């Protein structure tokens, strides 16, 4: 086996893993902090990809520059979704199941609205610099993956800083650790939940832009992305940002290595079998609490 080819597979896998990690941290955040299983997480990532796509194709705005706008818009959309769909559900007897059903409904709505407006043709974000590749020695690395990865790492770092260094972020953690206690010390649980959910959706949107640079996307690709999100979140441990990020890299590594040796279709089977086994034996995840 050509060592260069192997290294290329591994590197591209890891870079991809980073982006998947960003896609998943938000999902883990709402699951851990609010007991909400947000199945619509990935579909909002696709929405983010579309927003970047249209601003690039129609407005000539580079996808990387449109990231702040995408994040902002999806923050607002997340907030609205929280008020309309999530908050009523959190009053139910079984929040986890109720949120699963409700967010599934939300997913259907968003996916089909996008499909209706923008048609299910595959799209790809192709600014001029993504076509070329970087050469390190004899190893070829796709620039798109590198840029996406860098963006994902920055976003994950920002999320981490938010959670651990800002007051609101600490309030989110407090609500997560002890909802009743948080309320007792004066934290507005509704406000915190709103912000948590909105940030989660915003991060999904940004991740979508990253994914859009590498993979072609269409509304129903959210089905595949959702599976990856489940994979990373559960293996990484629900709600642990570091855990999810590291798992992203790990999964990316596994994907890269197996892609070098196995036919493509078996890579997925392997990954999902792995997830199933981990679920059966250590559902809290590798880094979970």
């Amino acid at each position, binding site marked *: 086996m050509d060592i260069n080819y192997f290294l290329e597979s591994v590197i591209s896998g890891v870079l991809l893993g980073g982006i998947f990690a960003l896609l998943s941290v938000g999902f883990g955040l709402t*699951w851990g902090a609010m007991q909400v*299983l947000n199945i619509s997480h990935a579909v909002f990532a696709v929405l983010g990809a579309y927003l970047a796509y249209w601003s690039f194709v129609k407005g000539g705005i580079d996808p990387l520059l449109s990231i702040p706008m995408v994040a902002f818009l999806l923050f607002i959309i997340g907030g609205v979704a929280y008020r309309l*769909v999530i908050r*009523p*559900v959190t009053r*139910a*007897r*079984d929040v*986890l*199941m*109720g949120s*699963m*059903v*409700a967010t*599934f*409904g*939300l*997913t*259907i*709505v*968003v996916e*089909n*609205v996008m*499909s*209706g407006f923008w048609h299910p043709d595959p799209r790809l974000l192709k600014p001029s610099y993504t076509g070329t590749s970087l050469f390190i020695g004899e190893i070829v690395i796709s620039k798109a993956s590198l840029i996406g990865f860098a963006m994902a790492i920055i976003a994950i770092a920002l999320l981490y800083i938010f959670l651990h260094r800002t007051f609101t972020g600490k309030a989110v953690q407090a609500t997560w650790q002890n909802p009743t206690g948080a309320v007792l010390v004066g934290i507005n649980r509704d406000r915190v939940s709103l912000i948590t959910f909105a940030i989660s959706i915003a991060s999904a949107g940004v991740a979508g832009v990253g994914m859009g640079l590498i993979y072609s996307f269409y509304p129903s690709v959210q*089905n595949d992305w959702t*599976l990856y999100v*489940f994979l990373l979140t*559960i293996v990484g441990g629900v709600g642990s940002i570091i855990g999810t990020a590291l798992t992203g890299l790990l999964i990316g590594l596994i994907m890269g290595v197996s892609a070098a040796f196995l036919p493509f*279709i*078996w890579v*997925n*089977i392997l990954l*999902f*079998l792995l*997830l*199933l086994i981990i*679920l*059966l034996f250590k*559902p809290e995840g590798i880094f979970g609490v």
Partner: protein
Amino acid sequence: MENENPGKPKSSTADRFILLAVLLLLVVFPFFGPPLFFLSLFISIFLFISLTESWNLLGGYTGYISLGHVVFFSIGAFTTAVCMNCFGTSPFLTAILGGVVAGGVAAIVGFPVLRLKGAYFSISSLLLAVISQLIFLNWEFVGGSVGLWYKLMPVSIEANRVIFYEVMLGLALLITLVVRYVEKSKFGAGLITIREDEDVAKTIGINTPMLKLKAFVLGSFFAGVVGGIYGYYLSFIHPDITFNINTSLLILLMAFFGSCTTWTGPLLGAVVLSLANQLIVTFIGAEISRVLYGLILILVIIFMPNGMIEYLKMGQKVRKSQVG
């Protein structure tokens, strides 16, 4: 005679008469020569009644939400297809075998997976569906990515439809009755206890793993039988069709909509939502129908979080307390 139990609705004999009349009507309906479209619609409704009721054995009564019911449906379908292609046997005979194979797989798979709780169980079942789909897509013996064909019956299209109509009606009826029986039995009581509080159930001596497994296997058996027949009706099966995750989610939706706590719920949910979907698609448009579907799901879970039957029961209680 005074109604001794004021909570119970009076006179179930009148209800029984109505039910029997409706059933009779359904049975003779195809012989009045309605357009084939209606027969197809009813067949689809019977399919969903069967799938949703059989799903509810585990999902509704124990609270273990499985997203993998389609796996067993598919196993049944592929079993009958393979039997027909290899041995020439009619799926009407081999459907039971399909059910048994599906039940067998459920027994093996259910053993480790049913130990998980809540969301973890649901995600595992989803993974099973995905992995199974991938395996079937790459397995030459069951047609791989090409799919499998059934030999058509040597009868006219009309007769073909009528036969499937009656068979599916029979299946839906049978499965619903079995689920109703289970609900009122000790088995069902045990299942419901699991949903209410599994740990307490264990402490009072209920063998929870065995009960869950039984419910899972029984439900999967029925899904397999239905799959065996329905595959024949489609006359062509393919992993992308039979393992479709949307079907799993639709089953979930219908059960929740109707109320997964009782046997009438999935029945109502399947009928109402199938008809609603058909009406929307016919009168409003196919594209929007999916969006409306999602909206209905959201609204239902917000306003009728326990489903329609529970909502109606609650309304009945309120009315009764106001009259009394």
